[in-house]
């Protein structure tokens, strides 16, 4: 379509006769049908954006490193008869590497996982506004609702990859340091390695569902501000306040509605039979929080004036 003269190749823009853009046909992707955005394309773009952020690899790196550090620490302390206490499942690791992933999950779920979720979701809108790319992206014919949904989904996918890395790291280092054996459940029964892996997977899916609340909360703040740090801090503050509040008996009435109350309910997968009731209750609360907050984020973002 365009003819470029030597001046352009020498480094200057737009020589005479360089462009006749309006004559460009559909081959340049301008057909009405072709221009309709597809959900898959939106997710793919968000995934590429995530891959081009250094912080993504830092968190994934951490998800891989933590099972290693837990395994190493417990391996070195194995012979210490006065070995200290640790989070749930820690005492079982030395006899079975299968528990490394669960111990990592127990250690991370109260704070570091919410932090990671708040960070990735907080960046989704506010980070783009901060960078200035939000205004150039929204000049494309994309619906704000779809854009927001793609952002939410990709934050969840990002965390799911983090969980997968943590499971892989846990099994790898657990296997290396302690070996992988049939698991003894909290009820005292034994399940095979295959079933154990299934339960670990279910536990991680439950934790991922819990993180959907944080993602939605952070995404909501992300639509309110043009600073990803503000969104992150606001989310963590709210999370900590809720976590602290539900410790007090005065707020017993509030507890069943607060998602942090259900974070550790994944341990019920390791009872025989599985205690589904608290798990399902937790999932219901997570869905409620996540749904309401994501909808609130949509309402804000739909009318947001992009001034960044």
């Amino acid at each position: 379509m365009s003819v470029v003269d030597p001046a352009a190749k020498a480094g200057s823009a737009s020589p005479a006769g360089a462009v006749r853009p309006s004559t460009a046909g559909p081959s340049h992707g301008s057909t009405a049908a072709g221009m309709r955005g597809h959900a898959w394309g939106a997710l793919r773009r968000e995934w590429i954006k995530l891959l081009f952020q250094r912080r993504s690899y830092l968190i994934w790196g951490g998800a891989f490193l933590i099972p290693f550090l837990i395994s190493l620490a417990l391996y070195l302390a194995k012979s210490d008869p006065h070995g200290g206490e640790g989070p749930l499942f820690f005492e079982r690791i030395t006899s079975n590497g299968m528990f490394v992933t669960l111990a990592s999950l127990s250690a991370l779920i109260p704070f570091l996982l919410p932090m990671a979720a708040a960070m990735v979701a907080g960046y989704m809108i506010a980070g783009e506004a901060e960078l200035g790319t939000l205004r150039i992206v929204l000049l494309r014919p994309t619906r704000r609702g779809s854009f927001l949904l793609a952002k939410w989904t990709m934050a969840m996918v990002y965390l799911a990859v983090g969980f997968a890395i943590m499971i892989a790291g846990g099994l790898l280092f657990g296997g290396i340091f302690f070996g992988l054996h049939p698991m003894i459940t909290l009820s005292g029964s034994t399940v095979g390695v295959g079933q154990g892996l299934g339960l670990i997977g279910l536990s991680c899916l439950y934790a991922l569902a819990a993180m959907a609340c944080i993602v939605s909360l952070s995404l909501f703040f992300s639509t309110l501000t043009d600073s990803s740090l503000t969104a992150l801090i606001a989310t963590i503050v709210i999370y900590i306040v809720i976590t602290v509040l539900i410790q007090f008996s005065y707020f017993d009435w509030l507890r069943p509605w607060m998602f942090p109350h259900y974070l550790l309910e994944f341990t019920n997968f390791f009872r025989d039979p599985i205690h589904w009731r608290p798990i399902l209750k937790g999932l219901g609360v997570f869905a409620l929080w996540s749904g309401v907050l994501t909808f609130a984020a949509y309402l804000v973002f739909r009318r947001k004036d992009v001034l960044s």
Partner: protein
Amino acid sequence: MSSEAEGARPEQQSCGGRAPILTTHALTKQFGTLRAVDGLDMEVCKGDIFGFLGPNGAGKTTVIRLVLGLIHPTSGYAEVCGHRVPGQLQDALRHVGGFVDDPTFYPLMSARRNLRLLGSMTGPVSEERIDEVLEIVALSDRAEDRVGGFSHGMKQRLGIAQALLHSPELIVLDEPTSGLDPRGMKDVRELIRELGAAGTTVFLSSHLLHEVEQVCTRAVILNRGRIVVQGPVSELRPQNEAVKVLTGDQGRAAEVLRDQFGAGGVIEDESFLVVQADEAAVPEMIRRLVAGDIEVRAVVPAPEQGLEDFFLELTGADAAGEPQRRKRRAGLARLLPGGRR
């Protein structure tokens, strides 16, 4: 040309047979107590290279954001390529390319990947098309480099490249030559002219008057969120038909000329008389002066009022700036040696 300075509200311009591609209808945007855009009625016709002029803070970027759906109007609406904004924003944006403020990109991605990513939001973009637009803006040799390392001027050019990607009918450029070196400015202006010649409508926001004068066919001057003048650029510069007269007796000459042209038609300007008259009136004017026994020493055209002066007059920027200039001069005087004495 219509002008608020003449006392009347600027009239909606007709496209004279051409289809309007961008119109605004009483478009208003209020931020708290600030009315950034105030009942804007504007029409850009298909094929125009439309200049959007105004001093800093006039509301140019706010209007662009409104028209492109980045912000929501307090009242009124825009119509872009036949689609109402904000109601049918996505349909409108399929026909528009451009950028607002400085174009920004994902710094860790290459120029090519940025174009691929942004372009795919409108529709599939071939690698050939990406190559073409990169060549147009002379960034082919930096296609694989990370945008984070680009200069401001290179980012401006990449901004134009992404605007061209899907061959839009309307291109909106917000101060595209800002930060470019003279060669870069010349090239971008040339590109804009070529886009116009190829039938693309270009909406060019600028505060560089000569840029608009060089490139645009029609223009609007905006001040405090309102249009103060709009029309063809050739008519933007005021028609200044006046002559300067020097005679042996300026006092008597003034009396004679006021008889001919009225009291308001003759102004004493230093040693000259400035007469509001066109060339055709000059022979009669000289005949009358000679008949009155007044020695005519010179009759010369009065210098035209520049677009810049006209702009300052319309926007009030000159008058508003005077107190500031006085303060600055006073401040400088204090800083200079002996200034405190």
